[in-house]
Protein backbone atom coordinates (compact mmCIF):
# COMPACT_ATOMS: atom_id res chain seq x y z
CA UNK A 1 0.00 0.00 0.00
CA UNK A 2 2.80 2.36 0.91
CA UNK A 3 4.56 1.91 -2.42
CA UNK A 4 1.41 2.95 -4.22
CA UNK A 5 1.68 6.15 -6.16
CA UNK A 6 -0.19 9.23 -5.07
CA UNK A 7 -2.50 10.53 -7.73
CA UNK A 8 -4.67 13.54 -8.04
CA UNK A 9 -8.28 13.08 -7.08
CA UNK A 10 -9.50 15.48 -9.68
CA UNK A 11 -8.67 14.26 -13.14
CA UNK A 12 -9.87 17.50 -14.67
CA UNK A 13 -7.39 19.46 -12.61
CA UNK A 14 -4.95 21.22 -14.89
CA UNK A 15 -1.97 20.50 -12.68
CA UNK A 16 -1.83 16.76 -12.97
CA UNK A 17 1.13 16.15 -10.76
CA UNK A 18 2.39 13.36 -8.64
CA UNK A 19 3.52 14.55 -5.23
CA UNK A 20 5.75 11.52 -4.81
CA UNK A 21 7.77 12.36 -7.94
CA UNK A 22 7.35 16.07 -7.65
CA UNK A 23 8.00 16.48 -3.96
CA UNK A 24 8.22 20.24 -4.00
CA UNK A 25 4.54 20.95 -4.42
CA UNK A 26 4.88 24.36 -2.81
CA UNK A 27 6.06 25.72 -6.15
CA UNK A 28 2.67 25.09 -7.69
CA UNK A 29 -0.35 27.27 -7.04
CA UNK A 30 -2.20 24.74 -4.94
CA UNK A 31 -0.56 22.93 -2.07
CA UNK A 32 -1.46 19.27 -2.14
CA UNK A 33 -1.33 16.75 0.66
CA UNK A 34 -1.45 12.97 0.58
CA UNK A 35 -4.43 11.25 2.09
CA UNK A 36 -4.83 7.52 2.63
CA UNK A 37 -8.39 6.18 2.48
CA UNK A 38 -8.98 2.97 4.42
CA UNK A 39 -12.18 0.97 4.45
CA UNK A 40 -13.68 -0.10 7.74
CA UNK A 41 -16.56 -2.42 8.64
CA UNK A 42 -18.78 -3.25 5.70
CA UNK A 43 -17.46 -0.52 3.37
CA UNK A 44 -16.10 -1.61 -0.01
CA UNK A 45 -12.36 -1.26 -0.47
CA UNK A 46 -11.07 1.39 -2.86
CA UNK A 47 -8.67 0.01 -5.45
CA UNK A 48 -6.55 3.13 -5.17
CA UNK A 49 -6.14 4.25 -1.58
CA UNK A 50 -3.62 7.05 -1.70
CA UNK A 51 -4.53 10.37 -3.25
CA UNK A 52 -3.00 13.82 -3.47
CA UNK A 53 -5.64 16.42 -2.77
CA UNK A 54 -5.87 20.20 -2.63
CA UNK A 55 -5.13 21.06 1.02
CA UNK A 56 -7.69 23.87 1.06
CA UNK A 57 -10.64 21.61 0.21
CA UNK A 58 -13.17 20.77 2.95
CA UNK A 59 -13.69 17.23 4.27
CA UNK A 60 -17.21 17.20 2.77
CA UNK A 61 -15.53 17.25 -0.63
CA UNK A 62 -13.64 14.04 0.21
CA UNK A 63 -16.86 12.43 1.40
CA UNK A 64 -18.51 13.25 -1.94
CA UNK A 65 -15.46 11.96 -3.81
CA UNK A 66 -15.51 8.60 -1.98
CA UNK A 67 -19.28 8.32 -2.47
CA UNK A 68 -18.86 8.77 -6.21
CA UNK A 69 -15.87 6.44 -6.39
CA UNK A 70 -17.80 3.70 -4.59
CA UNK A 71 -20.95 4.54 -6.60
CA UNK A 72 -23.07 4.76 -3.46
CA UNK A 73 -26.83 5.26 -3.76
CA UNK A 74 -28.26 8.55 -2.52
CA UNK A 75 -29.78 6.89 0.54
CA UNK A 76 -26.56 5.14 1.56
CA UNK A 77 -24.55 6.79 4.30
CA UNK A 78 -20.81 7.35 4.46
CA UNK A 79 -18.86 8.28 7.57
CA UNK A 80 -15.27 9.48 7.63
CA UNK A 81 -13.00 9.25 10.68
CA UNK A 82 -9.64 10.64 11.74
CA UNK A 83 -7.40 8.56 14.06
CA UNK A 84 -10.21 5.98 14.19
CA UNK A 85 -11.68 8.30 16.81
CA UNK A 86 -13.69 11.26 15.61
CA UNK A 87 -15.70 12.35 12.59
CA UNK A 88 -14.47 15.76 11.41
CA UNK A 89 -17.04 18.39 10.47
CA UNK A 90 -17.73 18.43 6.68
CA UNK A 91 -16.59 22.06 6.53
CA UNK A 92 -13.24 21.39 8.23
CA UNK A 93 -10.36 22.14 5.85
CA UNK A 94 -8.10 19.19 4.98
CA UNK A 95 -4.97 21.24 5.75
CA UNK A 96 -6.08 21.75 9.37
CA UNK A 97 -6.48 18.01 9.89
CA UNK A 98 -3.26 17.21 8.05
CA UNK A 99 -1.31 19.66 10.22
CA UNK A 100 -2.73 18.26 13.46
CA UNK A 101 -3.21 14.55 12.72
CA UNK A 102 -1.05 13.74 9.71
CA UNK A 103 1.62 11.08 10.24
CA UNK A 104 4.56 10.15 7.98
CA UNK A 105 3.57 12.80 5.48
CA UNK A 106 0.00 11.68 5.03
CA UNK A 107 -3.43 11.96 6.60
CA UNK A 108 -5.13 8.62 7.19
CA UNK A 109 -8.92 8.66 6.88
CA UNK A 110 -11.10 5.65 7.64
CA UNK A 111 -14.48 5.43 5.95
CA UNK A 112 -17.45 3.24 6.62
CA UNK A 113 -21.13 2.98 5.81
CA UNK A 114 -22.33 2.92 9.40
CA UNK A 115 -21.19 4.79 12.48
CA UNK A 116 -17.98 3.10 13.60
CA UNK A 117 -16.58 5.24 16.38
CA UNK A 118 -19.70 7.12 17.52
Amino acid at each position, binding site marked *: MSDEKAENVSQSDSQVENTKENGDSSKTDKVKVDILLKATGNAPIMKKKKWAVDAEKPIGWIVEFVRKYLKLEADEKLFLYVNQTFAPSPDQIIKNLYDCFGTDGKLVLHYCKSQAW*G
Partner: protein
Amino acid sequence: MANDREVLREIWDGKLPVCFQLDQEEIMEIQQPDPFYVMVPRLSYFPLVIDKMKRHFLRYISQENADNEMWMDYNGQPLKWHYPIGFLYDLYCGNDPQTPWTLTVHFSKFPGNILLHCPNKDVVEAHYMSTVKEADVLKHRGQIMSAMQKKDHNQLWLGLQNDKFDQFWAINRRLMESHGDNDGFKHIPIRIYAEDGTCTQRLISPKNIDGSRKIIQQLITELYPEKPVKLRTHGITIPLDTPLQWLSEHLSYPDNFLHICVC
Protein backbone atom coordinates in the same frame (compact mmCIF):
# COMPACT_ATOMS: atom_id res chain seq x y z
CA MET B 1 -6.53 21.23 36.37
CA ALA B 2 -9.21 23.83 35.92
CA ASN B 3 -9.06 25.26 39.43
CA ASP B 4 -10.33 28.80 39.05
CA ARG B 5 -13.94 27.93 39.64
CA GLU B 6 -15.12 31.55 39.63
CA VAL B 7 -13.77 31.93 36.11
CA LEU B 8 -15.45 28.71 34.95
CA ARG B 9 -18.74 29.89 36.44
CA GLU B 10 -18.45 33.34 34.91
CA ILE B 11 -17.79 31.86 31.45
CA TRP B 12 -20.64 29.38 31.86
CA ASP B 13 -23.10 32.12 32.85
CA GLY B 14 -22.25 34.33 29.86
CA LYS B 15 -25.46 35.20 28.01
CA LEU B 16 -26.42 37.24 24.96
CA PRO B 17 -29.68 39.08 24.32
CA VAL B 18 -30.89 38.14 20.85
CA CYS B 19 -33.70 39.70 18.82
CA PHE B 20 -35.05 37.38 16.11
CA GLN B 21 -36.94 38.93 13.22
CA LEU B 22 -38.77 37.05 10.50
CA ASP B 23 -37.53 37.77 6.97
CA GLN B 24 -40.11 40.14 5.39
CA GLU B 25 -40.35 37.91 2.34
CA GLU B 26 -41.56 35.03 4.48
CA ILE B 27 -44.49 36.90 6.05
CA MET B 28 -47.83 35.77 4.62
CA GLU B 29 -50.13 37.38 7.19
CA ILE B 30 -51.44 40.94 7.12
CA GLN B 31 -50.52 41.27 10.75
CA GLN B 32 -46.76 41.62 11.21
CA PRO B 33 -45.18 39.25 13.74
CA ASP B 34 -43.55 40.80 16.80
CA PRO B 35 -39.81 40.26 17.01
CA PHE B 36 -38.83 37.48 19.40
CA TYR B 37 -36.45 38.44 22.22
CA VAL B 38 -34.54 35.87 24.23
CA MET B 39 -31.42 35.59 26.41
CA VAL B 40 -29.28 32.72 25.17
CA PRO B 41 -26.19 31.10 26.76
CA ARG B 42 -23.02 32.02 24.91
CA LEU B 43 -21.77 28.44 25.28
CA SER B 44 -24.82 26.83 23.68
CA TYR B 45 -25.76 26.14 20.06
CA PHE B 46 -28.65 27.79 18.23
CA PRO B 47 -30.62 24.57 17.54
CA LEU B 48 -30.84 24.03 21.32
CA VAL B 49 -32.42 27.39 22.13
CA ILE B 50 -34.79 28.28 19.28
CA ASP B 51 -37.80 25.95 19.64
CA LYS B 52 -40.03 28.68 21.09
CA MET B 53 -38.87 31.21 18.53
CA LYS B 54 -39.71 28.81 15.71
CA ARG B 55 -43.22 28.20 17.08
CA HIS B 56 -43.71 31.96 17.38
CA PHE B 57 -42.98 32.60 13.70
CA LEU B 58 -44.51 29.45 12.15
CA ARG B 59 -48.02 30.85 12.04
CA TYR B 60 -46.95 33.85 9.96
CA ILE B 61 -45.29 31.97 7.11
CA SER B 62 -46.56 30.16 4.05
CA GLN B 63 -47.68 26.66 5.10
CA GLU B 64 -45.76 25.11 2.24
CA ASN B 65 -42.55 26.32 3.92
CA ALA B 66 -43.54 25.17 7.42
CA ASP B 67 -41.63 21.88 7.18
CA ASN B 68 -38.53 23.47 5.66
CA GLU B 69 -35.30 23.73 7.61
CA MET B 70 -35.15 27.05 9.44
CA TRP B 71 -31.94 29.08 9.29
CA MET B 72 -30.70 32.51 10.38
CA ASP B 73 -28.45 35.26 9.19
CA TYR B 74 -26.77 38.30 10.64
CA ASN B 75 -26.38 41.13 8.13
CA GLY B 76 -26.73 38.68 5.25
CA GLN B 77 -24.17 36.29 6.75
CA PRO B 78 -25.74 32.82 7.32
CA LEU B 79 -24.98 31.56 10.83
CA LYS B 80 -23.43 28.11 11.21
CA TRP B 81 -25.39 26.20 13.85
CA HIS B 82 -22.41 23.97 14.68
CA TYR B 83 -20.40 26.90 16.07
CA PRO B 84 -21.12 28.03 19.65
CA ILE B 85 -23.40 31.08 19.81
CA GLY B 86 -20.94 33.27 21.72
CA PHE B 87 -18.23 32.55 19.20
CA LEU B 88 -20.50 33.56 16.30
CA TYR B 89 -21.23 36.84 18.06
CA ASP B 90 -17.54 37.51 18.67
CA LEU B 91 -16.78 36.72 15.02
CA TYR B 92 -19.39 38.99 13.46
CA CYS B 93 -19.97 41.62 16.16
CA GLY B 94 -16.76 41.55 18.19
CA ASN B 95 -15.38 44.78 16.75
CA ASP B 96 -18.70 46.58 16.94
CA PRO B 97 -20.77 45.11 19.78
CA GLN B 98 -24.52 45.53 19.48
CA THR B 99 -27.17 44.28 21.84
CA PRO B 100 -29.64 42.91 21.38
CA TRP B 101 -28.06 40.96 18.55
CA THR B 102 -30.61 41.24 15.74
CA LEU B 103 -30.86 38.16 13.54
CA THR B 104 -33.12 37.42 10.56
CA VAL B 105 -35.01 34.11 10.44
CA HIS B 106 -35.72 32.23 7.20
CA PHE B 107 -37.78 29.20 6.23
CA SER B 108 -36.81 29.08 2.55
CA LYS B 109 -33.75 29.39 0.29
CA PHE B 110 -31.54 27.33 2.63
CA PRO B 111 -27.91 28.15 1.73
CA GLY B 112 -26.71 24.55 1.47
CA ASN B 113 -23.34 25.62 0.11
CA ILE B 114 -22.54 27.38 3.41
CA LEU B 115 -24.57 25.69 6.14
CA LEU B 116 -24.67 22.07 7.22
CA HIS B 117 -28.10 20.51 7.53
CA CYS B 118 -29.47 20.06 11.02
CA PRO B 119 -32.65 17.97 10.88
CA ASN B 120 -32.74 17.38 14.65
CA LYS B 121 -30.85 17.75 17.93
CA ASP B 122 -29.21 14.33 17.58
CA VAL B 123 -27.11 15.85 14.80
CA VAL B 124 -25.96 18.59 17.17
CA GLU B 125 -25.10 15.99 19.80
CA ALA B 126 -23.10 13.90 17.29
CA HIS B 127 -21.19 17.00 16.19
CA TYR B 128 -20.55 18.03 19.78
CA MET B 129 -19.32 14.60 20.93
CA SER B 130 -17.07 14.27 17.91
CA THR B 131 -15.47 17.64 18.65
CA VAL B 132 -14.87 16.69 22.30
CA LYS B 133 -13.21 13.47 21.09
CA GLU B 134 -11.00 15.41 18.71
CA ALA B 135 -9.97 17.75 21.53
CA ASP B 136 -9.14 14.75 23.72
CA VAL B 137 -6.96 13.25 20.98
CA LEU B 138 -4.98 16.50 21.03
CA LYS B 139 -4.81 16.74 24.84
CA HIS B 140 -4.45 13.12 25.97
CA ARG B 141 -4.18 11.00 22.80
CA GLY B 142 -7.90 10.34 23.23
CA GLN B 143 -7.37 8.23 26.33
CA ILE B 144 -9.80 10.04 28.64
CA MET B 145 -12.79 9.94 26.30
CA SER B 146 -12.25 6.29 25.37
CA ALA B 147 -11.95 5.32 29.05
CA MET B 148 -15.24 7.05 29.89
CA GLN B 149 -18.55 5.25 29.86
CA LYS B 150 -21.45 6.11 27.58
CA LYS B 151 -23.31 7.59 30.54
CA ASP B 152 -20.44 10.01 31.17
CA HIS B 153 -20.61 11.17 27.56
CA ASN B 154 -24.37 11.62 27.96
CA GLN B 155 -23.85 13.62 31.14
CA LEU B 156 -21.56 16.06 29.34
CA TRP B 157 -24.12 16.59 26.61
CA LEU B 158 -27.11 16.83 28.97
CA GLY B 159 -25.20 19.24 31.22
CA LEU B 160 -24.64 21.52 28.25
CA GLN B 161 -28.12 21.08 26.79
CA ASN B 162 -29.87 21.74 30.10
CA ASP B 163 -27.50 24.47 31.28
CA LYS B 164 -26.39 22.46 34.35
CA PHE B 165 -22.94 23.65 35.38
CA ASP B 166 -22.30 21.05 38.12
CA GLN B 167 -23.54 18.14 36.02
CA PHE B 168 -21.30 19.18 33.14
CA TRP B 169 -18.16 19.94 35.14
CA ALA B 170 -18.38 16.72 37.19
CA ILE B 171 -17.33 14.97 33.97
CA ASN B 172 -15.52 17.73 32.11
CA ARG B 173 -12.96 18.15 34.91
CA ARG B 174 -11.51 14.76 33.91
CA LEU B 175 -10.93 16.11 30.40
CA MET B 176 -9.07 19.05 31.90
CA GLU B 177 -6.49 16.98 33.77
CA SER B 178 -2.87 16.98 32.62
CA HIS B 179 -1.54 14.32 30.30
CA GLY B 180 0.57 11.61 31.92
CA ASP B 181 3.41 12.99 34.01
CA ASN B 182 3.25 16.42 32.36
CA ASP B 183 1.90 19.50 34.05
CA GLY B 184 -0.25 20.26 31.05
CA PHE B 185 -1.85 18.91 27.89
CA LYS B 186 0.05 17.29 25.06
CA HIS B 187 -1.39 19.87 22.68
CA ILE B 188 -3.88 22.69 23.06
CA PRO B 189 -7.18 22.24 21.16
CA ILE B 190 -7.47 25.65 19.53
CA ARG B 191 -9.18 27.03 16.44
CA ILE B 192 -8.39 30.53 15.32
CA TYR B 193 -10.73 32.26 12.88
CA ALA B 194 -10.02 35.13 10.53
CA GLU B 195 -12.70 37.80 10.04
CA ASP B 196 -14.07 35.98 6.99
CA GLY B 197 -14.61 32.88 9.16
CA THR B 198 -11.68 30.89 7.74
CA CYS B 199 -10.49 28.50 10.44
CA THR B 200 -6.87 27.71 11.21
CA GLN B 201 -6.04 24.73 13.40
CA ARG B 202 -2.42 23.91 14.18
CA LEU B 203 -0.58 21.61 16.55
CA ILE B 204 0.14 23.96 19.45
CA SER B 205 2.11 22.89 22.51
CA PRO B 206 1.34 24.52 25.88
CA LYS B 207 5.10 24.80 26.42
CA ASN B 208 8.02 26.49 24.74
CA ILE B 209 11.04 24.48 23.59
CA ASP B 210 12.85 25.30 26.85
CA GLY B 211 9.95 23.84 28.86
CA SER B 212 8.55 27.17 30.07
CA ARG B 213 4.83 27.93 29.85
CA LYS B 214 3.80 29.35 26.50
CA ILE B 215 1.81 32.57 26.73
CA ILE B 216 -0.52 34.21 24.22
CA GLN B 217 2.15 36.70 23.19
CA GLN B 218 4.40 33.81 22.11
CA LEU B 219 1.56 32.09 20.28
CA ILE B 220 0.86 35.28 18.31
CA THR B 221 4.55 35.59 17.36
CA GLU B 222 4.54 31.92 16.31
CA LEU B 223 1.44 32.16 14.11
CA TYR B 224 1.65 35.77 12.91
CA PRO B 225 5.37 36.60 12.65
CA GLU B 226 4.79 39.49 10.26
CA LYS B 227 2.02 41.41 11.92
CA PRO B 228 0.99 41.30 15.58
CA VAL B 229 -2.74 40.71 16.07
CA LYS B 230 -5.16 40.74 18.97
CA LEU B 231 -7.13 37.64 19.87
CA ARG B 232 -10.66 37.61 21.27
CA THR B 233 -12.81 34.98 22.93
CA HIS B 234 -15.97 35.21 25.09
CA GLY B 235 -16.07 38.93 24.30
CA ILE B 236 -12.66 39.44 25.92
CA THR B 237 -9.44 40.56 24.28
CA ILE B 238 -7.05 37.96 25.70
CA PRO B 239 -4.25 39.56 27.79
CA LEU B 240 -0.88 38.84 26.17
CA ASP B 241 0.63 37.27 29.30
CA THR B 242 -2.10 34.59 29.62
CA PRO B 243 -0.58 31.06 29.69
CA LEU B 244 -2.07 28.81 26.98
CA GLN B 245 -2.55 25.90 29.39
CA TRP B 246 -4.62 28.03 31.79
CA LEU B 247 -6.59 29.47 28.87
CA SER B 248 -7.40 26.00 27.57
CA GLU B 249 -8.52 24.77 30.99
CA HIS B 250 -10.74 27.74 31.76
CA LEU B 251 -11.85 29.47 28.57
CA SER B 252 -12.46 26.51 26.27
CA TYR B 253 -16.02 26.07 25.02
CA PRO B 254 -17.89 22.94 26.22
CA ASP B 255 -16.58 21.14 23.10
CA ASN B 256 -13.14 21.48 24.77
CA PHE B 257 -11.78 23.74 22.02
CA LEU B 258 -10.68 27.33 22.34
CA HIS B 259 -12.55 29.24 19.62
CA ILE B 260 -10.67 32.45 19.04
CA CYS B 261 -11.24 35.37 16.67
CA VAL B 262 -8.45 37.45 15.20
CA CYS B 263 -9.16 41.15 15.60
